[in-house]
C-alpha cells in the first residue's frame, strides 16, 4: 500500500518535472545566446491553448503538439523582434509578452473551457498503479522520453559541437563573437524562437496530458519557476533537470500532504515551492560567490556601430 503511494508520488513528480524542465531547457538555450525572455509564462499558455484547440477540433495528437510548438515559437518571435532587431529592453519586452500571451490565450480559450478532450497524450506502456520505479518510468508518455533525449542532446550540443560553442560565444561576448564572423542577431533570434518552441511543447504537455483540460490561468506561475530553474541549474542542462525534479517533487507533494497526515492549511502549503525556490536560489548564489555561470552578455543588446 505504501509502495503504491510512494510510486504514485514519484509518478506525479516525474510528470510535474517534465513540464517544468522542458520550459526551463528552452529558456536556457535562449539565455545562452544572451537574450533574457521573461515571457515563458505567456508562451506556455499560448502553446497550451492552441494545442488544446487543435486537439478538440481535429482529434489528432501529433498535429496538436506541432501546432502548440509552432504557435509559441511564432509568438516568441515577437520578443525576438523587439529585443534583437529593435534592441529594446529585454525585461520589459518579456513582461509584455507574458501579459499579452496570457490575455490572448484566455480570449482564445474562452469557448473551450470545460470541454472534454477526445484524445490525450497517452503513456507508452500504460501501467495501472505502478509498484516500482521501473514501472513508473515505463508509465510515462512520449513527451517524457523526448525531454530526456532533449536534455542529453542539448548538453552535448552546447559542449561538444561548433554550433553550441558558437551559441555560447554569442552569449558570453557578442562583440568578440561578431568579430569572429558569427552572426549575433541571427543566433539570438533563432535561440529565442527555439526557446519559445520548447515552452510551447511544455504547454501542450500541460493541457493534453498533465491536467488535461483548459481553464483560466492554467499555467499558474510555472513559467516563472522555469525561469528560476535556469538560474538554479547554473545554465547547465543536467543540473537544471535536477532542479526540475526537486520542484516537481514539491508540486506533487503538496496535495498529498494531508493524506500523509500533515495538518496544514492547503493554502499555506501551496506557497512552499516558491519559498523554497527563493531560499535555494539565495543559497546557491552565496555559495557560488557571484559566479553563477550566467552568460556574461545576457540582457545587453548588441550594437555593431557603438562608438
Amino acid at each position, binding site marked *: 500500500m505504501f509502495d503504491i503511494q510512494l510510486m504514485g508520488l514519484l509518478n506525479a513528480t516525474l510528470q510535474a518535472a517534465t513540464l517544468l524542465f522542458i520550459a526551463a531547457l528552452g529558456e536556457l538555450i535562449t539565455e545562452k545566446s544572451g537574450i533574457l525572455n521573461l515571457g515563458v509564462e505567456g508562451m506556455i499558455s499560448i502553446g497550451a491553448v492552441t494545442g488544446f484547440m487543435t486537439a478538440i477540433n481535429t482529434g489528432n495528437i501529433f498535429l496538436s503538439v506541432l501546432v502548440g510548438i509552432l504557435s509559441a515559437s511564432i509568438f516568441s518571435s515577437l520578443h525576438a523582434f523587439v529585443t534583437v532587431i529593435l534592441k529594446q529592453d529585454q525585461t520589459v519586452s518579456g513582461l509584455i509578452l507574458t501579459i499579452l500571451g496570457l490575455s490572448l490565450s484566455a480570449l482564445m480559450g474562452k469557448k473551450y473551457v470545460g470541454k472534454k478532450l477526445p484524445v490525450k497524450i497517452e503513456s507508452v506502456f500504460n501501467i495501472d498503479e505502478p509498484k516500482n520505479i521501473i514501472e513508473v518510468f515505463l508509465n510515462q508518455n512520449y513527451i517524457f522520453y523526448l525531454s530526456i533525449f532533449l536534455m542529453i542532446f542539448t548538453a552535448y550540443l552546447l559542449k561538444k559541437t561548433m554550433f553550441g560553442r558558437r551559441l555560447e*560565444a554569442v552569449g558570453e561576448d557578442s562583440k*568578440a563573437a561578431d*568579430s*569572429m*564572423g558569427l552572426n549575433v542577431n541571427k543566433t539570438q533570434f533563432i535561440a529565442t524562437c527555439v526557446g519559445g518552441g520548447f515552452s510551447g511543447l511544455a504547454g501542450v504537455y500541460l493541457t493534453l496530458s498533465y491536467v488535461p483540460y483548459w481553464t483560466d490561468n492554467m499555467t499558474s506561475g510555472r513559467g516563472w519557476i522555469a525561469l528560476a530553474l535556469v538560474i538554479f541549474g547554473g545554465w547547465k542542462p543536467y543540473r537544471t533537470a535536477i532542479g526540475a525534479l526537486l520542484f516537481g517533487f514539491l508540486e506533487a507533494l503538496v496535495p498529498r500532504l494531508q493524506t500523509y497526515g500533515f495538518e496544514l492549511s492547503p493554502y499555506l502549503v501551496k506557497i512552499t515551492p516558491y519559498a523554497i525556490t527563493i531560499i535555494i536560489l539565495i543559497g546557491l548564489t552565496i555559495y557560488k560567490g557571484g559566479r553563477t555561470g550566467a552568460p556574461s552578455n545576457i540582457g545587453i543588446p548588441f550594437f555593431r556601430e557603438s562608438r
Partner: protein
Amino acid sequence: MNHIILEAKNITKSFGSIHALKNVDFYLYESKIHGLLGENGAGKSSLMNILSGIYQPEVGSIHINGNKVKKLNPDFASKLGIGMVHQEFRLINNFSIQDNLTLSKANIYTDNFKEGYEKYSDIFSLSADPSTPISELSVGEKQKIEIMKLIFNNNKIMLLDEPTAVLTPQETNQLKISLKKLSNEDNKTIVLITHKLKEIQEFTESIFVLKDGVMVAKDLETKNVTKNDLITLMMGEIKQSDISKDNKKGTEKLIVENIYFENMHSNVPTLNNISLKIRSGEILGLAGVSGNGQVELANIISGIERQYTGQVIVNGKNISNQGVKVRKNLNLSYIPENRLGVGLAPGVSIIDNSAVKDYFKSKFGPHLSTNKMLDYLNLLITQFSIKAPDPKAEVSTLSGGNMQKLLMGRELISNPEVIIAAQPTRGLDINAVEALHDLIVKQRNNGSAIMLISEDLDELFKLSDRIIVLYEGQIVKEFAIEEADIENVGLAMAGLNE
C-alpha cells in the same frame, strides 16, 4: 615589385555630426609592413574598421587584387583575408585559447590545430597550453593570441591597431621580430596603426599619414622620411612647450608607508611594501606596465580601497583605511585611468558628472540646486575650454579630449593639495595632450604634490622630477629624472634589473 593587394578609394564616413574620414585613399602592397600614422582622432581606427567590415562607409569602394568588393561585413572581410587586432581585445575571457582560435567560421586549422599552434607560438615565443582560459593570460600574451587569431582565420592582410600601447620595450622588440618573420617568411601583409613615430620608423617599409580625416601622405618610403617630416604631416603646427624643472619643492604633502595589499582573487600580494613621499611642487612619475599594482595603489591612496595594512598620510593627517570623503575634505584629487566608467558615469548627464567631486558639500544647496550646478559647470567650461553645448546631454557624447578636460577640470579646480593622475592623456590628440600637460604643470607650480601614473614614457620623462618603477606590486627602482633613460626604465618595467 610587390603588387597592390588591397585598395580603398575615396572613403567617406561620419558618426552623427562628426566627419571621421573624408575622401580617403589607401593601398597595401603584398608582404610588406605598412604604417598608418596619425594622431588620436585622425580617423585611423575608423578606416581600419571599414576595411575589416565592421563599419560601412557612406561613400567609397574597396578593391581586393584589383576586383571591387560589394558589401563588406566582418565575416566577408575575413573570407577575403582581412583581419584586425583592436586596441581593446576581442577575446572571450572565459573561453580557452583553443576556443578563441577555432570558433571562427573562417578557421583553417580545423584538423591540424596542434601543428598550427606549435608553429606560431614558436614565432611569437608564446608558452601557454591551448586549454588555458584567456582570463589567466598576461596582456602581452593575450595580444599574441589576438594576432594568432588572424593567422588561424587565414587572414593574409593583418591590421594591428596600436599594438605596442600595452607592451614593455622588450616585448615591443619581440613583436617587431615576429612581424618581420611573418611578412618575410609567411607572406603576410601587415599594417601597423599608431601615433608613435618610433615604432613607425623601426617596424615599417611604407608610411601613410592621416590628419583630421584626410590622407595627407601616401606610401612614403620609411627610410627616406625624417621624424620632423612625419610630425609636420601628422600635426600641422607643433605646440611644444619646454617644461622647466627648476620648480621649488616644499613640505611633504603625501606620505605612503609600508603598504601591503592583497587582491581578493590571488594569493600573490598585489602590493608589497610600498613606501613613497611626494613634496609640494613635485611630480613623481610612476612607471610600469598596466597590471602591476598601479590601479590598486591609486585606489588605496584615494580612499576607494580600505582593506590594507600600512599608512597613508596627507598633509600630516593620518587617514589610513578611511574613505573617499575624508580625502576629498583634505583636498586630495584623483583622476582615474578609466575615464568613462569610473571618473565619469556613462549614461549620466554632463551636468551630473561635473558635480561628482563636490556634490555632498552643500555647494549646491541642501537639496541639489540645478542653478548652482549649472554655474559650477560653466565655470569649468570657461576655465578649461571644454566644448559641451548641452549640459543635459549624456557625458559620452563629448569627444575623448573634452571628457578628459571635464574630468580633470572638476578635479583640479579646487587647487588640490595632492593629485593622483592615472594615464591622464591616454588616447588623446597632441593638442589636447599639450593642454593637459600645461594644466598639470600649472598645478605643480601652485604647490600641489602630484603622482603621475603613466605607460607613456615620453610623458613621464617630460613631466616628472623623479620616476619610480612598479613591477609585480613592488617598487623595484627609483630614478632622479637626470639618471633615467628609456633603457634602464624599460628594463625595470620588465622586472629585469642589473
